[in-house]
């Protein structure tokens, strides 16, 4: 049964998690718009998703008495630095307008994934009830 539900909702939870992480990064960029020396950062959504959906980076065990790792959680999406269009004197590379636009875009993507996910749940409910 959980398998059916997992199949129905697909990779959407990973989408949501990556969008959530990205929105927190973009929020830090906006928050630090006036912090000297702060470098704006972002994640590459496609790469992050590939990592979230693909296999986890696991340590290989070559001997019987090696301890297998429990799945590394430190290997998250790679956080990259933005190339500033207009570098400022204090070393800050936040472009408020850009960051705000990206934050809004990210929020809408999150929202739409949520809507899709909600739709999946609605149809699952309909199927369960047999209506």
């Amino acid at each position, binding site marked *: 049964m959980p398998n059916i539900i997992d199949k129905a909702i697909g990779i959407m939870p990973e989408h949501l998690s990556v969008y*959530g992480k990205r929105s927190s990064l973009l*929020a830090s960029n906006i*928050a*630090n718009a*006036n912090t000297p020396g702060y470098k704006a950062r972002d994640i590459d959504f496609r790469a992050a998703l590939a990592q979230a959906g693909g296999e986890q980076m696991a340590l290989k065990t070559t001997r019987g008495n090696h301890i297998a790792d429990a799945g590394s959680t430190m290997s998250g999406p790679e956080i990259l630095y933005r190339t500033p269009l207009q570098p400022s004197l204090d070393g800050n590379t936040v472009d408020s307008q850009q960051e705000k636009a990206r934050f809004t875009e990210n929020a809408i993507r999150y929202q739409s994934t949520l809507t899709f996910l909600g739709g999946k749940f609605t149809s699952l409910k309909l199927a369960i009830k047999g209506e």
Partner: protein
Amino acid sequence: MSLFNIFSISGSAMSAESLRLNTTASNLANAQSIGSSEATTYRAKNPVFAAMMQSLQGDNVSFGVEVKGVVDSTTPLETRYQPEHPMANEEGYVFLPNVNVVDEMANMISASRAYQSNVEVLNTSKQLMMATLRLGQ
């Protein structure tokens, strides 16, 4: 849940920006606070911002804003020869604060705009979280 982080990030930024607004208000209010010596005259105050690591939870690195402190401006004070002024020193000079009103106005607008952006970020995140909580209902 990374969205929870945003509350502390934007919250710290809002408090930092409101502190900047506060120092600006203090500077503008004291722009004409004439003193009789270099030591007792008001000096323009500026907050120092720094990025503060909010969380290093696995892959999630985000930064809030930390106020490192408020420093006095080191710009030299303006002296004016005004022997009839009650605050004048023995040589007849008064000291004017090193507050640049134009700078302060620009600072004020910048701080209020930044505050607004953070409020918007907070609001959007709140709506997203509420929508997530309502998922499947």
